[in-house]
């Protein structure tokens, strides 16, 4: 695993097809504030340095709030086999995300669960390090 990351960093530094530079997630999102949002995906923006999903979330009173959710880079998503078609454009989904530190309607999306129960999760870590 470490090898993979180091190889990825080396590729980033010198090899072909280097990635766009992107900001630290820790500077923007609070890992201790997981949120669950249910809504309709109004737009999937397949851009660098991060994929963005726009979600209209309806509360109990029927009021709609627009949220935007960052994901990994489009290149990382594609290396996982995930393309824009996997991100639920137009569908009603449930999203597990981590809220932005500035408290705006913005978060980092970890997992999208669809009405039929299938899930798309792009996340970070090492399963062998699970406590």
């Amino acid at each position, binding site marked *: 695993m470490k090898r993979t990351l180091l190889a990825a960093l080396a590729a980033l530094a010198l090899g*072909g097809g*280097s990635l766009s530079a992107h900001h630290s997630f820790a500077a923007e999102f609070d890992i201790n504030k997981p949120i669950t949002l249910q809504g309709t995906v109004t737009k999937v923006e397949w851009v660098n340095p991060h994929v963005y999903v726009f979600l209209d979330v309806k509360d109990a009173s029927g009021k709609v709030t627009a949220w935007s959710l960052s994901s990994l880079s489009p290149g990382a998503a594609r290396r996982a086999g995930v393309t824009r078609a996997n991100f639920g454009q137009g569908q009603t989904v449930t999203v597990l995300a981590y809220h932005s530190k500035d408290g705006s309607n913005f978060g980092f999306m970890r997992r999208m669960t669809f009405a039929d129960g299938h899930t798309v999760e792009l996340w970070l870590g090492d399963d062998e*390090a699970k406590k």
Partner: protein
Amino acid sequence: MKFAAATALAVALAAVSAAQSPSPSTPRTADGKVDLNGIWGVAPLPPAVKPGQSVRWLLPLKGVDPEGADVFKGLDRVQVNARAAAANKPEYKPELLAKVKELSDKQGVLDPAFYCKPQGVPRMGAPAQIVQTPGQVVFLYAASNLFRVIPTDGRPHRADADPSYMGDSIGRFEGDTLVVDVTNFNDDTWLGSDGYFHSEKMHVVERLTRNGDVLTYTVTVEDPLVLAKPWTRGPANMKLSTNPADALLEAPPCVEHDAPHIVTLDHH
């Protein structure tokens, strides 16, 4: 019969010799230069996940529990530590070390490669594809939709261009190596994430050597105003891609959404 047997033996020996050869021979263009045409070092993509199919993928972070509270900080730490452990870093003049540290500490907001600016030469790395014609070589960069046109016809650097992110390049062939000399940079790029700034006096020399189906890329950076000595990165070896599926695709554009939401100076 004797002649036929000798011919068969010669053919057989040639076949054995070809099989034992460490790499295919290095091809040449019609004008006798080393042929650098091709897609280099591009990792093949996995098949696309069908819509409706579940997928779970983790960006590898050694030792970081994906269910834990350390994921975001862990990403920064793993990357910072990996770079800190790297043996080969640019060496700055002693009076500039404090500035490098300050830029590095504030990398999360000061790195010029954020806000969708080009990483520039040399940070953007080796080209993903090379197109070579007599008198010029064109470098194509897949991740950023950028290109460099590099004359190899002996002309000097141009005097009428503004300083730029990728500089002004001229190339020459030395045996099986293309040597690219780059000058006239702006100072709006870094050499890497750790505050490695440079001046407009930066001078970059890239060397691309083909050996069979492998291209070796090395880059040397001189900057008399900020570096204590020239800094060399590499060599990085890139394999020739022969799979038609590796043809370069349009990269998604860079659209900055993050800057207004950056709250702390965490960085990676």
